[in-house]
């Protein structure tokens, strides 16, 4: 892991997790998704059609859908 920057995760109430400083996000199937964005929104509701990224679907699904996704952010 790089020592020059920290990867930071911020959980948004009823929303996604904002992940700063990650180079890749590993989804619940173990598949790594690379990103070049400085901050990404990672789906926590499990309903995104662009998983692991949030696509706003949490706003139209009934509240309190339990999170089934487990994510791991890595700085390469």
């Amino acid at each position, binding site marked *: 892991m790089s020592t020059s920057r920290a990867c930071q995760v911020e959980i948004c109430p009823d929303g996604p997790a*904002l992940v700063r400083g990650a180079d890749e996000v590993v989804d619940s199937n173990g598949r790594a998704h690379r990103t070049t964005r400085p*901050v990404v929104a990672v789906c926590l509701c499990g309903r995104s059609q662009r998983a692991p990224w949030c696509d706003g679907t949490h706003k139209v699904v009934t509240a309190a859908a339990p999170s089934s996704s487990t994510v791991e952010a890595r700085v390469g």
Partner: protein
Amino acid sequence: MQLPRPRGPLSERVFAEMLSPDPKPVAVEPLPATGDVLADEDLQVTLWALYELSFRGFEDVDPDHEWSPGLITTRRVLEEAFEAALRSLTDDAVDRALEEHRRTTEQVLAVIDDVDDPRLARYLQREATEEQYREFLVHRSIYHLKESDPQAWAIPRLEGGPKVALAELQYDEFGGGRADRLHSTLFAKALEGAGLEPAYGAYVDVVPALTLATNNAMSFFGLHRRLRGAIMGHLAAFESTSSLPCRRYSGGAARLGFDGRVNDYFDEHVEADAVHEQLAVRTICQQLVDQEPALQRDVLLGASACVRLDALAAAPMLEAWQQGRSSLLDTPQEEVA
């Protein structure tokens, strides 16, 4: 870009002053009634042109006229009417949100939910013809070719958390360090991909007043420091109502078989705006009101104006398409008398 075509006596007189070496104020009378200001072609194109002096300007207008006392005097009269119209459009929704919710985040969401979805995105996804989809891009080109520029005015007017969050959001809007990912450039590529003209301002003459009003609201909020709450509230509502429609717009572009550059623009916004929404609502607006409670009402003014103007502009668009008409103004060859 040249000055747009005048749409009535007011724009004719104001544009004539803009072309002169020493513009004089133009007496704006009679002003349209408050309820008519937003759809007034003559007033909205005049205001749009006056604001444009602070963005890209016009080849035929002296750049120094941005600060012409005569033009600014005229602009202020129009802005007073415009602000009254925007407050009248949004006051009830803002009052309801303030009564029913305590936190800014909840109030912003409440004014957004206060408006019925105009179903424009659904129509574009499932029903629009190629020509109607192109018209939609033409309407959107007025803003997306200067995407996030009006919000950038707010940066020097904010402090601490809201400033940092706005800068983080804007860094993404402005390409994240890559000129080819500048969102306005992505939109120009989408226009090209759809066989449209990508040049800045190319379609100003064919979009109706309500489309100009959605743009003028951002310029108005952005250019006035006292309205920094409103431009940030507008941003929060804009970003919060972007991800899901963009998915539909992208689906519509795929259904119609448009060039991938059209999908690319909207796909970018599904992911980017999911981030921006969180930043704009939770960090920028909530913390801004925590810092400056006096801005609370303006934050909601901006948020409500964003969704209500969008709905106002979408309704005649959908109606025209459903009746088999164009939603754009007739391409005028003749001058307005």
